């Protein structure tokens, strides 16, 4: 199982729009809720009401400040979960075969009954996508809600990952990135979607849409015609007003 499939029928994954994510953490908690109640062991919390609460989360939202050469600093909210890499290093290092990549859709999963909790897959992942649950002793990671996306017990429109379903600003998109005609692939093309840490050679399936250029409002010279004064004097204003009202 530790071998990666040579080819997957689909490449299911997420497209995350950094231009739209407001950093509300909705996806973080929705994921926590679904995956606590569903696939495998619950996502536990240690010292839940104490001095150092620390639990297992499969999706976390970072934030970064970016200072351009000119213009004000920008703040970017940055959700991050498993990227379901094509060359997933976390899979091949697994000594037990618990970690595997599904040949049907490319989802990277942990078969918890085979996991010995050695942690090596987390070491191998450059993205911090895997967390060893401290109560269950097994490795937890994003399942791309494999127990939702094909689930006949859910209405068809709900067969999407919990994080995508809940995202209020629509910054998360789910689909087949192996199909160039899919909505997500089109979005990636249109918006110049990127891979994280491409130099690590993991070939992530998930893509990130970079923030659109900010603070680009044209200088007043371009916009000046829109504010050309009608007259310099208040009296002139009333004259203009009368002329204009006559035309209404």
């Amino acid at each position, binding site marked *: 199982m530790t071998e990666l499939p040579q080819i997957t029928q689909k490449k299911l994954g997420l497209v995350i729009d950094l231009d739209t994510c407001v950093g509300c953490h909705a996806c973080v908690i929705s994921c926590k809720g679904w995956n606590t109640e569903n696939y495998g062991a619950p996502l536990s919390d240690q010292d839940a009401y104490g001095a150092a609460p620390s639990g297992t989360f499969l999706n976390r939202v970072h934030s970064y400040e970016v200072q351009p050469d000119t213009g004000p600093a920008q703040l970017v909210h940055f959700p991050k979960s498993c990227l379901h890499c094509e060359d997933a290093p976390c899979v091949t290092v697994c000594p037990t075969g618990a970690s595997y990549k599904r040949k049907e859709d490319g989802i990277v999963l942990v078969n918890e009954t085979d996991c010995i909790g050695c942690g090596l897959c987390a070491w191998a992942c450059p993205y911090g996508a895997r967390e060893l649950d401290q109560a269950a002793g097994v490795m937890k990671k994003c399942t791309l809600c494999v*127990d939702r996306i094909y689930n006949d017990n859910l209405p068809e429109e709900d067969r999407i990952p919990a994080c995508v379903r809940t995202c209020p600003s629509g910054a998360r998109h789910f689909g087949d990135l192996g199909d160039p005609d899919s909505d997500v692939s089109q979005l990636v093309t249109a918006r110049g979607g990127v891979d994280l840490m491409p130099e690590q050679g993991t070939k992530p399936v998930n893509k990130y849409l970079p923030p659109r250029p900010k603070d680009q409002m044209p200088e007043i010279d371009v916009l000046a015609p829109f504010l050309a004064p009608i007259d310099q004097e208040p009296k002139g204003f009333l004259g203009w*007003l009368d002329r204009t*009202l006559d035309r209404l």
Partner: protein
Amino acid sequence: MTHKQPVLDLSPPVSDEIRKTTCYMCACRCGINVHMKTNADGDMRVAYIEGNRDHPINKGVLCAKGSAGIMQHNAPARLRKPLKRVGERGSGEFEEIEWDEALEIATDWLAPLRADAPEKLAFFTGRDQSQSFTSFWAQNFGTPNYAAHGGFCSVNMAAAGIYTMGGAFWEFGQPDWDHTKLFMLFGVAEDHDSNPIKMGIGKIKARGARVIGVNPIRTGYNAVADDWVGITPGTDGLFILSMIHCLMKAGRMDLDYLARFTDAPVLVNGDPASPEFGLFLRDADGKQQVICRKTGTLTAFDKPGVRPDLSATHVAEGITHRPVFHQMAEKYLSDDYAPEAVAERCGIPATRIRAIAAEIARVAFDEAFELDQEWTDFRGDVHKTMTGRPVSFHAMRGISAHANGFQTCRALHTLQIILGTVEVPGGFRFKPPYPKPATAHPKPHCGVTPDQPLDGPHLGFVQGPEDLALKADGSPVRIDKAFTWENPMSAHGLMHMVISNAHSGDPYKIDTLFMYMANMSWNSSMNTGGVMRMLTDKNDSGDYVIPRIIYSDAYSSEMVAFADLILPDTTYLERHDCISLLDRPICEADAAADAIRWPVVEPDRDVRGFQSVLCDLGARLGLPGFVDDTGAQKYADYADYITSHERRPGIGPLAGFRGEDGNQAGRGAPNPDQLKRYIENGGFFTHHIPDAALYYKPWNTAYQDWAVETGIYDTPQPYLFSLYIEPLRRFQLAAEGHGDRQPPDHLRDRIKHTMSPLPIWYETDQDGNEGFNITALTQRPMAMYHSWGSQNAWLRQIHGHNPLYLPTKLMRKNGLQDGDWARVTSPHGEIKVPVLEMAALNENTVWTWNAIGKRKGAWALDDAAPEATKGFLLNHLIHELLPPKGDGLRWSNSDPITGQAAWFDLKVRIEKTAPLIQSEPVTPNQNSPAPAAPKNLAWKSR
């Protein structure tokens, strides 16, 4: 290569049942699907919470708080039984008592007050979402002292909106997300209507429309804004008026809209000697009068066929009456508002102000579009199309919580109106029951008679000095001094002044303070330390200065420790509630809508929904609305009240499924099966507005007729937007010496200065701020807004403590690095807190997340919890009164018009200090009435 993979069950059962109710993790009131599972013991348990796709508010999405509801519902901090204080106030020492005893105690305390002096009960209900019910209770009790938390939240926004255009943002209205092309956001606004705004931003971002954020702090929505304006806090009004200056000067206004739908053409008395100087010229019916441009004659504004003239003046009885628009031109074309004149104060270059004004004008007028929808206005004019002006705005607490907030909010609405972007496609749209002008709202009532109900609703919209809540001697009727000369238009009351006034016995002493869901001893009060002292202060005879405190909360909050009697509330999944059209409903611009909560699980503790307790207590006290003809309890519980109460014949708390068959919307006889029908319908009810009525609602006959049919109005009431607020002018006139009711002399100048009928900007009172030059702000994180959240095991991991964010310049200036500690001093106090650098921040502003800091012992958290060690409140630096000016008076730290708490006027000084392990000041811990929390969680409902 070979590849093997296990066989997975791809269709595991999701849950045994889905129960649909309404979220209460904040004030957004989203629809939720509560997935239930039956465990091995046969108990139905909450397994998972997601958004309800059919719900008008959230359409399936849900924020972090909503999804974390399961942790709130199961929090160890839940109270378990009524509590009677046995230790000193503030210690948190209680004994558990039975409900009967608790209700007897409350009755014994309250009955004598009602018989002799109902005002000695002050009943304030915090984060209450049942204000039409709690106010009904208070009204029947007969006390004038009732309000919820609006006074320290966003009353400036609400009042300015209602007085100006018959509705404000949030629950009153929303941008036309489907058509807008430029969305401009002022101040911190992540607080209200959170999911709809996030959804809206997502929508317009997907279209590539532009978002402009005006906020000293670039977080949240401002982080995704295409353009960020890092304005100097408190100067938004000046910036807006400068844009108005640019737009007027360039003639970039919707004159047709101004003439038809606003009071811009209404004639105003221009004779300074007249006692009616500045008041509207009205006809015998009291209708505002205009000159018709077609006929040149004076006429009431609403006569069929009238074309109000924005320009013509009128002389009557020797007095020249000029249209409002003349006054606006005079005021706003002045160089005082030129970008160059305001740039420095606003911290925005003049070229930038012009550029933004130009961009707004470009989109509003050059990207205008027509919707092919005919409609008829109140003058009978038929319009073939609806003209879209795709510029929309939103603002909330950010511009609201300043002492110039009312006028700033007014300025923003004025900007919207001169662009013609209110109630038009692409602009801002009201949600039913709005539009509803101030004149259609009640006025405040304060007629107290022992043993009798109050003479009407407590809160409302004053129209002039005659509506103030003053006794014959001119002293305030209300304990919070709402509707007095200090803050005449305090439409939501002043909950933040109650404890301070009750403690000082000013304007009088009270006996019992009764509060609900309001953490007044901690994050909801200014001057937190002072408030804790007031609550525990004793007089010479050893009695508490505030004799009795009853408090209802579901959780072991900081306020619990200061009460004498605790009435434990349920969690939001264990209760009935109605989100009513009589109150603050969940309507969308396209539909009227309301919703319920219902007990999707029964409490496993001896707790009761607060509203049901009020039904019981009301009956024990024999309150008229709460007993039947025989004197027996009228409403068995809140559910009974929701179904059977009628405010007016046929109008009840819920609009849906009325009538015997349950097929009537809006109006109809009570339906005993109403709640069942709501539950079957997903917990809510929607009633769509016809297509021809979707825009121009204040003036659209189709809408007006629909609203009457639905029970929103009793008769059509078209009205003009108030660019010029006549009631403000009436207060000015009084201050100028006109009329019987006169303000105290020390307030005359302030009233004349601040209560301008046209929006103005003024610098907030800076006396005593010398040497304190940095503005300190707070905001709630999106994952916790409007819910305190620390008892939530998932959310507290995201925000377990709060640093003070400093701009790069202040970090360098003070030699600070990330993780260092600083002493932050205000004229009122000092705190010592950890700091972090933030570059995307106004260079003279610092900020932190509010209400993360907790008192040790509260919320069932460990004493060593980061909330109680590193977390801190800025509240310690903010006083409910301004620093003494030496005039012998103490001026309230609030807006002089509405009394809105001016949280964001705080000015501080910052110095580096030695690192600490505990932020200061340190509040000694309180005992927790909640059982010890579990160490670890590995949640699974079965």
